[in-house]
Protein backbone atom coordinates (compact mmCIF):
# COMPACT_ATOMS: atom_id res chain seq x y z
CA UNK A 1 0.00 0.00 0.00
CA UNK A 2 3.02 2.21 -0.47
CA UNK A 3 2.01 5.70 -1.52
CA UNK A 4 -1.46 5.54 -0.03
CA UNK A 5 -2.37 7.16 3.25
CA UNK A 6 -3.08 4.54 5.86
CA UNK A 7 -3.32 4.20 9.61
CA UNK A 8 -3.58 1.09 11.76
CA UNK A 9 -6.05 2.92 13.99
CA UNK A 10 -8.68 3.05 11.29
CA UNK A 11 -11.68 0.90 12.08
CA UNK A 12 -12.92 -1.52 9.43
CA UNK A 13 -16.66 -1.11 8.92
CA UNK A 14 -17.11 -3.68 6.19
CA UNK A 15 -15.50 -5.52 3.32
CA UNK A 16 -17.10 -6.59 0.05
CA UNK A 17 -16.42 -8.46 -3.14
CA UNK A 18 -17.58 -6.82 -6.33
CA UNK A 19 -18.44 -9.43 -8.91
CA UNK A 20 -21.83 -8.38 -10.21
CA UNK A 21 -23.84 -5.26 -10.91
CA UNK A 22 -26.08 -6.08 -7.97
CA UNK A 23 -23.05 -5.88 -5.67
CA UNK A 24 -22.41 -2.37 -6.93
CA UNK A 25 -25.89 -1.26 -5.90
CA UNK A 26 -25.62 -2.97 -2.50
CA UNK A 27 -22.23 -1.53 -1.69
CA UNK A 28 -23.08 2.03 -2.70
CA UNK A 29 -26.18 1.84 -0.50
CA UNK A 30 -24.01 0.64 2.34
CA UNK A 31 -21.60 3.54 1.79
CA UNK A 32 -24.54 5.90 2.16
CA UNK A 33 -25.58 4.10 5.34
CA UNK A 34 -22.11 4.52 6.84
CA UNK A 35 -21.97 8.17 5.76
CA UNK A 36 -25.28 8.69 7.52
CA UNK A 37 -23.95 6.92 10.62
CA UNK A 38 -21.09 9.42 10.65
CA UNK A 39 -23.79 12.11 10.54
CA UNK A 40 -22.73 13.54 7.20
CA UNK A 41 -25.25 15.86 5.58
CA UNK A 42 -27.43 14.69 2.72
CA UNK A 43 -25.26 16.38 0.07
CA UNK A 44 -22.05 14.79 1.34
CA UNK A 45 -23.81 11.43 1.60
CA UNK A 46 -24.81 11.79 -2.03
CA UNK A 47 -21.33 12.91 -3.09
CA UNK A 48 -19.52 9.97 -1.53
CA UNK A 49 -22.15 7.47 -2.69
CA UNK A 50 -21.93 8.76 -6.26
CA UNK A 51 -18.12 8.80 -6.22
CA UNK A 52 -18.06 5.21 -5.01
CA UNK A 53 -20.58 4.20 -7.65
CA UNK A 54 -18.23 5.55 -10.35
CA UNK A 55 -15.25 3.73 -8.86
CA UNK A 56 -17.11 0.44 -8.52
CA UNK A 57 -18.28 0.62 -12.11
CA UNK A 58 -14.71 1.21 -13.29
CA UNK A 59 -13.56 -1.68 -11.20
CA UNK A 60 -16.28 -3.97 -12.52
CA UNK A 61 -16.02 -2.96 -16.18
CA UNK A 62 -12.28 -2.56 -16.56
CA UNK A 63 -10.67 -4.29 -13.61
CA UNK A 64 -12.69 -7.50 -13.70
CA UNK A 65 -14.24 -6.74 -10.32
CA UNK A 66 -12.40 -6.57 -7.04
CA UNK A 67 -12.68 -5.77 -3.36
CA UNK A 68 -13.99 -2.80 -1.44
CA UNK A 69 -12.98 -1.90 2.07
CA UNK A 70 -15.02 0.63 4.06
CA UNK A 71 -13.26 2.15 7.05
CA UNK A 72 -13.60 5.06 9.37
CA UNK A 73 -10.79 6.89 11.06
CA UNK A 74 -8.98 10.12 11.64
CA UNK A 75 -7.24 11.74 8.67
CA UNK A 76 -5.63 15.15 9.12
CA UNK A 77 -7.45 15.51 12.45
CA UNK A 78 -10.78 14.95 10.77
CA UNK A 79 -13.16 12.05 11.24
CA UNK A 80 -13.49 10.47 7.84
CA UNK A 81 -15.07 7.72 5.90
CA UNK A 82 -12.39 5.91 3.90
CA UNK A 83 -13.23 3.68 0.97
CA UNK A 84 -10.63 1.60 -0.77
CA UNK A 85 -11.32 -0.15 -4.07
CA UNK A 86 -8.82 -2.75 -5.18
CA UNK A 87 -8.87 -4.61 -8.46
CA UNK A 88 -6.45 -7.06 -10.01
CA UNK A 89 -7.03 -5.98 -13.58
CA UNK A 90 -4.55 -4.81 -16.17
CA UNK A 91 -3.77 -1.55 -14.40
CA UNK A 92 -3.83 1.94 -15.85
CA UNK A 93 -1.04 2.76 -18.24
CA UNK A 94 -1.22 6.52 -18.11
CA UNK A 95 -2.66 7.73 -14.82
CA UNK A 96 -2.49 11.37 -15.76
CA UNK A 97 -4.52 10.69 -18.89
CA UNK A 98 -7.03 8.54 -16.99
CA UNK A 99 -7.49 11.36 -14.50
CA UNK A 100 -8.20 13.97 -17.15
CA UNK A 101 -11.76 15.02 -17.89
CA UNK A 102 -13.41 13.45 -20.87
CA UNK A 103 -10.89 10.66 -21.30
CA UNK A 104 -12.32 7.20 -21.69
CA UNK A 105 -10.76 3.87 -22.50
CA UNK A 106 -14.02 2.05 -22.95
CA UNK A 107 -17.66 2.80 -23.52
CA UNK A 108 -17.86 5.29 -20.70
CA UNK A 109 -17.91 9.03 -21.06
CA UNK A 110 -14.77 9.55 -19.06
CA UNK A 111 -16.36 11.02 -15.96
CA UNK A 112 -15.41 8.11 -13.73
CA UNK A 113 -12.11 8.98 -12.10
CA UNK A 114 -11.93 12.79 -12.41
CA UNK A 115 -15.63 13.08 -11.50
CA UNK A 116 -15.19 10.88 -8.44
CA UNK A 117 -12.17 12.95 -7.42
CA UNK A 118 -14.19 16.16 -7.45
CA UNK A 119 -16.80 14.64 -5.14
CA UNK A 120 -14.46 13.59 -2.32
CA UNK A 121 -12.09 15.36 0.05
CA UNK A 122 -9.11 13.19 -0.73
CA UNK A 123 -8.44 10.94 -3.66
CA UNK A 124 -5.47 8.59 -3.94
CA UNK A 125 -4.71 6.18 -6.71
CA UNK A 126 -2.02 3.64 -7.32
CA UNK A 127 -1.86 1.48 -10.38
CA UNK A 128 0.60 -1.06 -11.65
CA UNK A 129 0.51 -2.55 -15.12
CA UNK A 130 -0.80 -6.12 -15.09
CA UNK A 131 -1.10 -6.00 -11.31
CA UNK A 132 -4.17 -3.87 -10.77
CA UNK A 133 -5.36 -0.60 -9.37
CA UNK A 134 -6.09 0.70 -5.90
CA UNK A 135 -8.20 3.80 -5.42
CA UNK A 136 -8.69 5.24 -1.95
CA UNK A 137 -11.18 8.03 -1.40
CA UNK A 138 -11.96 9.91 1.81
CA UNK A 139 -14.77 12.15 2.86
CA UNK A 140 -14.50 14.22 6.01
CA UNK A 141 -17.43 14.22 8.38
Amino acid at each position, binding site marked *: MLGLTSDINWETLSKHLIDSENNIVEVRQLVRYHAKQLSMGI*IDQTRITTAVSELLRNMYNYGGGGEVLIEKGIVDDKISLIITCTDHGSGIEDLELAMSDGYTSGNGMGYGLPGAKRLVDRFEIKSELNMGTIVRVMKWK
Partner: protein
Amino acid sequence: MNNDLHEKRIPIIKIGNFLIVSIQVDMHDKLALQLQSQILQEIEKTGAKGVLIDISVLEMVDSFIGRMLSGMASMAAIMDAAVVIVGMQPAVAITLVELGLEMPGVDTALNMEYGMEMLERRLNDDDISLY
Protein backbone atom coordinates in the same frame (compact mmCIF):
# COMPACT_ATOMS: atom_id res chain seq x y z
CA MET B 1 -30.12 -13.08 -11.52
CA ASN B 2 -32.45 -12.95 -14.51
CA ASN B 3 -35.36 -13.46 -12.17
CA ASP B 4 -34.10 -10.64 -10.09
CA LEU B 5 -34.07 -8.34 -13.10
CA HIS B 6 -37.58 -9.35 -13.94
CA GLU B 7 -38.89 -8.64 -10.45
CA LYS B 8 -37.45 -5.16 -10.56
CA ARG B 9 -38.98 -4.25 -13.91
CA ILE B 10 -40.07 -0.63 -13.74
CA PRO B 11 -43.73 -0.05 -14.68
CA ILE B 12 -44.64 2.38 -17.46
CA ILE B 13 -48.14 3.86 -17.27
CA LYS B 14 -49.93 5.51 -20.16
CA ILE B 15 -52.27 8.42 -19.45
CA GLY B 16 -53.68 10.24 -22.47
CA ASN B 17 -50.82 11.10 -24.79
CA PHE B 18 -48.19 10.62 -22.16
CA LEU B 19 -46.20 7.85 -20.59
CA ILE B 20 -45.44 8.10 -16.91
CA VAL B 21 -42.47 6.34 -15.41
CA SER B 22 -41.69 6.49 -11.74
CA ILE B 23 -38.30 5.08 -10.86
CA GLN B 24 -38.65 3.64 -7.37
CA VAL B 25 -35.53 1.49 -7.13
CA ASP B 26 -31.81 2.06 -7.06
CA MET B 27 -31.01 0.85 -10.59
CA HIS B 28 -27.97 -1.11 -11.60
CA ASP B 29 -26.63 -0.45 -15.09
CA LYS B 30 -28.46 -3.26 -16.86
CA LEU B 31 -31.76 -2.26 -15.34
CA ALA B 32 -31.19 1.34 -16.47
CA LEU B 33 -30.52 0.20 -20.04
CA GLN B 34 -33.51 -2.12 -19.92
CA LEU B 35 -35.72 0.77 -18.85
CA GLN B 36 -34.38 2.88 -21.70
CA SER B 37 -35.37 0.37 -24.36
CA GLN B 38 -38.62 -0.44 -22.58
CA ILE B 39 -39.66 3.23 -22.76
CA LEU B 40 -38.72 3.50 -26.45
CA GLN B 41 -40.73 0.38 -27.26
CA GLU B 42 -43.67 1.80 -25.38
CA ILE B 43 -43.44 5.07 -27.34
CA GLU B 44 -43.55 3.08 -30.56
CA LYS B 45 -46.42 0.91 -29.39
CA THR B 46 -48.63 3.70 -28.03
CA GLY B 47 -47.58 6.67 -30.16
CA ALA B 48 -47.14 8.67 -26.95
CA LYS B 49 -46.01 12.26 -27.49
CA GLY B 50 -44.43 12.77 -24.14
CA VAL B 51 -42.70 10.87 -21.36
CA LEU B 52 -42.54 11.98 -17.74
CA ILE B 53 -39.81 10.33 -15.74
CA ASP B 54 -40.14 10.85 -12.01
CA ILE B 55 -36.83 10.45 -10.20
CA SER B 56 -37.86 12.03 -6.90
CA VAL B 57 -37.10 8.82 -5.04
CA LEU B 58 -33.63 8.43 -6.56
CA GLU B 59 -30.99 9.28 -3.97
CA MET B 60 -28.20 9.14 -6.47
CA VAL B 61 -27.70 9.69 -10.19
CA ASP B 62 -24.22 8.76 -11.32
CA SER B 63 -22.68 9.25 -14.75
CA PHE B 64 -24.22 6.07 -16.12
CA ILE B 65 -27.79 6.83 -15.09
CA GLY B 66 -27.34 10.47 -16.13
CA ARG B 67 -26.12 9.34 -19.53
CA MET B 68 -28.99 6.89 -19.83
CA LEU B 69 -31.50 9.68 -19.12
CA SER B 70 -30.01 12.14 -21.60
CA GLY B 71 -29.60 9.42 -24.24
CA MET B 72 -33.19 8.46 -23.66
CA ALA B 73 -34.32 12.07 -24.26
CA SER B 74 -32.43 12.26 -27.58
CA MET B 75 -33.76 8.91 -28.74
CA ALA B 76 -37.33 9.80 -27.81
CA ALA B 77 -36.97 13.16 -29.61
CA ILE B 78 -36.10 11.29 -32.80
CA MET B 79 -39.28 9.30 -32.27
CA ASP B 80 -41.23 12.57 -31.89
CA ALA B 81 -41.76 12.30 -28.16
CA ALA B 82 -40.58 14.77 -25.55
CA VAL B 83 -39.03 13.63 -22.29
CA VAL B 84 -39.26 15.58 -19.06
CA ILE B 85 -37.37 14.49 -15.97
CA VAL B 86 -39.19 15.53 -12.82
CA GLY B 87 -38.44 15.72 -9.12
CA MET B 88 -34.68 15.64 -8.99
CA GLN B 89 -33.51 16.00 -5.38
CA PRO B 90 -31.27 19.03 -4.69
CA ALA B 91 -28.39 16.85 -3.48
CA VAL B 92 -28.60 14.85 -6.71
CA ALA B 93 -28.53 18.02 -8.83
CA ILE B 94 -25.50 19.36 -6.95
CA THR B 95 -23.65 16.09 -7.28
CA LEU B 96 -24.40 15.76 -11.00
CA VAL B 97 -22.95 19.19 -11.71
CA GLU B 98 -19.87 18.55 -9.57
CA LEU B 99 -19.38 15.23 -11.28
CA GLY B 100 -19.12 17.21 -14.50
CA LEU B 101 -22.07 15.60 -16.22
CA GLU B 102 -24.05 17.87 -18.46
CA MET B 103 -27.37 16.69 -19.72
CA PRO B 104 -27.91 18.63 -22.93
CA GLY B 105 -31.39 18.50 -24.39
CA VAL B 106 -32.94 17.15 -21.22
CA ASP B 107 -35.96 19.08 -20.01
CA THR B 108 -36.60 19.05 -16.30
CA ALA B 109 -39.43 20.16 -14.07
CA LEU B 110 -39.72 20.51 -10.34
CA ASN B 111 -42.57 18.04 -9.98
CA MET B 112 -45.02 15.86 -11.85
CA GLU B 113 -47.63 18.62 -12.17
CA TYR B 114 -45.24 21.14 -13.75
CA GLY B 115 -43.80 18.41 -15.92
CA MET B 116 -47.25 17.53 -17.19
CA GLU B 117 -48.00 21.20 -17.95
CA MET B 118 -44.73 21.47 -19.82
CA LEU B 119 -45.59 18.49 -22.01
CA GLU B 120 -49.13 19.73 -22.63
CA ARG B 121 -47.86 23.15 -23.66
CA ARG B 122 -45.45 21.56 -26.02
CA LEU B 123 -48.14 19.36 -27.55
CA ASN B 124 -50.40 22.40 -28.07
CA ASP B 125 -47.58 24.36 -29.68
CA ASP B 126 -47.03 21.48 -32.07
CA ASP B 127 -50.73 21.41 -32.98
CA ILE B 128 -50.78 25.12 -33.72
CA SER B 129 -47.69 25.00 -35.87
CA LEU B 130 -49.38 22.46 -38.12
CA TYR B 131 -51.82 25.05 -39.42
